[in-house]
């Protein structure tokens, strides 16, 4: 900081003091060089589009013409749009299922990896579903779970049960999509949790064993409290990702049947690109989603005290 405030005086100084000047600036020039690419990327690909998106949400811009300022009209429309609120509810239900199941599963897998095995092969296998792209995973499950031809339904029928309309039943479609994405993400999340687990000193467990604590008791009293900050961050990151579910819906159901899987991101995409081309309204919905995500992140951060560590 002082280097920056000093800068004007040093530049005004005679040439002979150049050596002093570079010493005063310290690492700043090098730091700027290293920060510049990321800053340019941040401004061009994040800051500017975000600001422009916020501006568009107050206009009636469409794909083909730049619109004028219309104040809060788009937000008024949003408040009265039953499809948007349905999409909001559908997305929340998806996030609850997806994050709920995924987190429990990930912690379980991570603890098992931590306490039982050090095998790299096992860790590799746990991660494999994450290597499959979302679109491929969605297509794969679309085929596997097809009512007529799907392998899973063949098995279900062979076992003597009725076939299940995984993607065609309104009450099953969101749980199905949530589980498909749990399958894909749980391993990755488990690895994140696993990384957190490795920061817990082994001697705590030794002490626990000396005191005669069971594995379950040690999980409750040692693992969970010390894992909390990591879990807090993992939750924030995965939940933001979960709110943005789009590809699975786009590939498998296109929001159907009858809006039962019409999540917010898909609805925004539809409004902007496949009907009406209403960039203004789509931007307003995006801004609303951003506000919701920011709020949830802050609340979660506070609740899980993710920035504090109990180990200190």
């Amino acid at each position, binding site marked *: 900081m002082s280097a920056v405030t000093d800068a004007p005086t040093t530049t005004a100084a005679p040439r002979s003091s150049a050596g002093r000047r570079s010493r005063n600036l310290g690492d700043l020039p090098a730091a700027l060089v290293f920060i510049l690419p990321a800053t340019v990327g941040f401004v061009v690909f994040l800051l500017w589009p975000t600001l422009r998106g916020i501006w568009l949400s107050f206009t009636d811009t469409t794909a083909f013409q730049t619109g004028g300022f219309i104040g809060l009209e788009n937000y008024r429309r949003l408040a009265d749009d039953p499809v948007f609120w349905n999409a909001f509810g559908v997305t929340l239900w998806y996030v609850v299922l997806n994050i709920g199941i995924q987190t429990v599963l990930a912690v379980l897998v991570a603890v098992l990896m931590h306490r039982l095995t050090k095998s790299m092969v096992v860790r590799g296998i746990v991660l494999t579903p994450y290597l499959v792209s979302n679109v491929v995973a969605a297509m794969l499950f679309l085929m596997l779970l097809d009512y007529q031809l799907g392998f899973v339904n063949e098995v279900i029928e062979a076992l003597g049960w009725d076939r299940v*309309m995984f*993607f065609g039943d309104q009450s099953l479609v969101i749980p199905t999509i949530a589980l498909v994405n749990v399958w894909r993400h749980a391993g990755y999340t488990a690895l994140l949790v696993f990384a957190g687990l490795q920061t817990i000193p082994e001697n705590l467990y030794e002490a626990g064993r000396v005191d005669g604590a069971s594995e379950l008791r040690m999980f409750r009293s040692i693992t969970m409290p010390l894992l909390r900050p990591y879990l807090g961050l993992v939750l924030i990151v995965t939940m933001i990702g979960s709110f943005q579910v789009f590809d699975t819906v786009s590939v498998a159901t296109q929001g159907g049947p009858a809006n039962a899987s019409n999540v917010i991101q898909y609805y925004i995409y539809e409004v902007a690109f496949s009907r009406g081309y209403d960039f203004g309204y789509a931007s307003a919905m995006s801004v609303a989603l951003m506000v919701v995500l920011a709020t949830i992140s802050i609340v979660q951060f506070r609740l899980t005290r993710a920035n504090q560590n109990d180990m200190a």
Partner: protein
Amino acid sequence: MKRKTAPAALVGVVALALSACSSGGGSGSGGDGAGEITYWLWDSNQLPAYQACADAFTEANPDTTVKIEQFAWDDYWTKLTASFVGGSGPDVFVDHLSKYGEFATQGQVVALDEMIERDGFDTSVYADGLLDPWQYADGSTYGLPKDWDTTAFFYNTAMLDEAGITSEDLWAADWNPDDGGTFEEIVAHLTVDANGVRGDEEGFDPSAVEVYGLGINPNFEETGQMQWANFTGTLDWDYLDTNPWGTRYNFDDPEFQKAIDWFYGLAEKGYAPAAGVFSDETPTQVGSGQVAMGTNGSWATGSFMELDGVDVGIAPGPVGPEGERASLFNGVADSISASSDNKEGAWKWVQFLGSTDCQDIVAEHAVVFPAIPESSEKALAAFDEKGWDVSAFFSYEEEGRTFLPPITLNAGDVNAIASVAFEDIYLGNADASSLTVADEQIDAVLQQ
């Protein structure tokens, strides 16, 4: 999008400059329009036919080549819009009646009237009623007709035989929204449950159906073309207050709603598959052997006839309460993008597409019915040659009636509301009286 080599581009520029000079003299001939034209279409079945047209075109116009790109229907419109926004659209593309209004409003397609007049292009060659819908609300023409289609019922001939029903019975079937007429009797009789009991027999179990009498396409649209349009079209009813460019839909009509309840009610009776049972269209459904009969358009004839192990016949829609059978009559056309940088070349290609030369080539491929009646006759002959009896698609013109799909502005929003409303009825979330609310929402969109 267009990758020209530098010399070719130069030739194009020079040619355009020359044509600019000569156009003062009134004749648009010469080397104008040279370069590459990009042409988009959605139906992969038609690709070989139009490739043949493109080859013939380049033979006649060596300076102009045509590059055809094909994208499936679902991606087609999104890609097209994106390409318009990005200024990299195709020069010419296959356009649809339900879509072009929006493009015309946004100024993304070229009005063809001036060029038609300048070159004295004869638009009277097309079958009646094909060109008119391409006149936008402002009176300008935005597309030249290329082909037409109607819808009919594709049936499994073996299943019909087994049920003791003849194709004559199907052709003679009648229908009404109250009890479905003899058409429903046929559908019921074609339905068979797990115990071999037919739908119209004592002890039929609608919860364990092996073969459904009628398949339902999973295509929920305001047109109903793939589902209920063959039935509602026979009523004294039309989609809009005025078509094209109406601003009030008639989905609130009680007679129409009765027909819709009847149609989706077939699933409750076990005569048709419930929502979600099939995620594919009727060619797959009939091909699976679990569906005896299904609606589809004339363009799908090949998909049905080439099904493995299933022999398929085609019958027209039943005769309705007004004493006539009916089908939606849809025309597809070629439009020129406003963003095309070679509009002369594009116009030449569109003229060729709309000429007997190209339409005869398409006819030979027996995939669709061309817009020019003489070419259409040739297509009929080509279908006959393959042993495919497609007379059902012509029957509406001869002894029934045809109607246009609803043509309005904001068709994308209309479709979004209507598709969910109809699917809700199929899913059993609501009955057809709920269409009154959807109708109000649609009217609000149209009157914006």
